């Protein structure tokens, strides 16, 4: 049986044994060196489908990862809703300058949502990646989770304050963000995405309480996961501390959970085991300590540590810093290739 990145990753997410440990970057992995190597640069690669796909393909062809992904930032949905976006130039990713709505305003979903902003480019990039690499590596379409999209619709500070005193006022935004996430996710799988990544970075215990996660984030993540169920596995990525909510996250029905090294993976897996939960955990090579600042040996040590903690797939904790060297990311991939995965 011939192994390749796609089969390896899909098998590992299902809990099966593979020829060796799969290695991906759940979040963005474009670096300045990768832009040089592929000839596709920010900011064009944020908007132009060909360049987006070319830079992304470098994840497999240059870095040696088992999956590629698009896009590179977390502002695509907010822009489609009408937020003002600040271009990040060559060095930075786009950011939200002014949110689309003021808290209290009705969050109208644009009728042509999937035709707005950079969504068509992301969908087209998935199609290109699927055609060029789809036989060998997994193509991942990444969307932002409903909690985080809703927060970006009205601004993070007003959203978080309301989450405490007037949580009901947030429901229209959460519901709209859920509907558009389902539309967008389906468009991604129709374009050929093998796996969906949901980045719900604001639903972190660095930001909100476990109670708020359970009430305002998990139910909407679950709706998206249920709606796309069967079409593609879903990896849910949440930043920061999560120990107190790992079981809630698993209960969304997600196929795999991507975590940072702030999470006690070993303890979470033990808790899962007791509760009969089989959801695999992905991670958790620190993008700064190991990948950006560390030596290749530091990176390899971080990979081995994650494996010993019980992850099923090696991935950086979070977005790779763009100043990271190709050599260090390759070192992550090489270290993973030396590890067995018995499932």
């Amino acid at each position, binding site marked *: 049986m011939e192994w390749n990145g796609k089969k390896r990753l899909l098998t590992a997410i299902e809990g099966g044994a593979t020829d060796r440990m799969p290695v991906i970057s759940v979040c963005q992995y474009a670096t300045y060196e990768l832009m040089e190597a592929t000839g596709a640069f920010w900011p064009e690669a944020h908007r132009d489908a060909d360049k987006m796909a070319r830079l992304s393909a470098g994840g497999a062809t240059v870095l040696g990862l088992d999956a590629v992904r698009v896009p590179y930032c977390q502002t695509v949905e907010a822009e489609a809703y009408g937020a003002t976006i600040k271009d990040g130039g060559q060095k*930075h990713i786009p950011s939200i*300058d002014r949110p689309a709505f003021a808290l209290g305003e009705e969050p109208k979903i644009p009728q042509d949502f999937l035709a707005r902003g950079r969504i068509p480019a992301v969908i087209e990039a998935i199609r290109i990646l699927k055609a060029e690499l789809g036989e060998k590596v997994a193509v991942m379409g990444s969307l932002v989770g409903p909690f985080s999209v809703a927060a970006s619709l009205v601004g993070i500070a007003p959203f978080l304050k309301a989450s405490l005193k007037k949580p009901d006022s947030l429901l229209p935004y959460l519901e709209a963000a859920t509907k558009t996430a389902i539309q967008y996710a389906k468009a991604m799988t129709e374009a050929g995405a093998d796996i969906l990544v949901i980045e719900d970075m604001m639903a972190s215990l660095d930001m909100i*309480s476990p109670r708020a996660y359970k009430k305002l984030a998990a139910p909407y993540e679950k709706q998206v996961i249920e709606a796309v169920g069967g079409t593609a596995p879903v990896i849910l990525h949440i930043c920061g501390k999560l120990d107190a909510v790992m079981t809630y996250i698993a209960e969304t029905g997600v196929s795999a959970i991507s975590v940072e090294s702030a999470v006690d993976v070993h303890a979470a897996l033990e808790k899962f085991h007791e509760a009969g939960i089989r959801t695999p955990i992905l991670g958790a090579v620190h993008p*700064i*300590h190991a990948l*950006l600042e560390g030596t290749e040996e530091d990176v390899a040590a971080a990979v081995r540590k994650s494996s010993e903690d019980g992850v099923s797939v090696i991935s950086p904790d979070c*977005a790779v*810093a763009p100043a990271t060297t190709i050599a260090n990311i390759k070192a992550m991939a090489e270290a993973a290739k030396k590890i067995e995965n018995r499932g």
Partner: protein
Amino acid sequence: MSEGKERIIEALASAVLNMEEDEAASLASEYIAGGHDAYDAIERGLSAGMAEAGRLFEEEEYFIPELLMCADAMNAALDILKPHLVKKESASQATVVLGVVEGDTHDIGKNLVKIMLETAGYRVIDLGRDIAPKDFVRAAEENGASAIAISTLMTTTMGGMEEVVRLLEEQALHDDFPVIVGGGPISPGFARKIGADAYASNAAEAVRVVDNLVNRGTAERIAV
């Protein structure tokens, strides 16, 4: 009547801690009507309440939304107390230039650092978010700052911090303006690597670290 004064000061601290904005405002009005010194209410009421909120945050009893609401309660009372503040000529009040690096528009953490620094008695020059490296340096010079505090939430924008330190070195200003960095992806190791002088992991810790930086001077700067 000082008994009434102490009671209100205590109640102000509780109102901040319990995120009661209206209560904080009405207590502040009552306090001013009683003719008490506004400074005491800020120092021992509002700041004490906010410091306690910071402690609960470090213990993971409070999260970011709670801190934001505490800050709203504090600001509601502060708006009423401030006009009655008898300006104390304090030459010793140190200035901190604060901002979020270029390319990053997340400013919640920076705003919390500002509140904690101000309640600890610092004059804060808040540059806002998405700030070019050279603007940190210029603001520090113009305001005779004792420190520059820089924040970012994203791994993709951390490079801007290094650029600030580089500019300071280039203009031989780094000894005058020590740099403290913080924010989600920042670590003590990163701070050391880019030549920053200190690191804080959250807004409450930032006050202690800035205290150290400002009071000890260059020679004894704490190790990052």
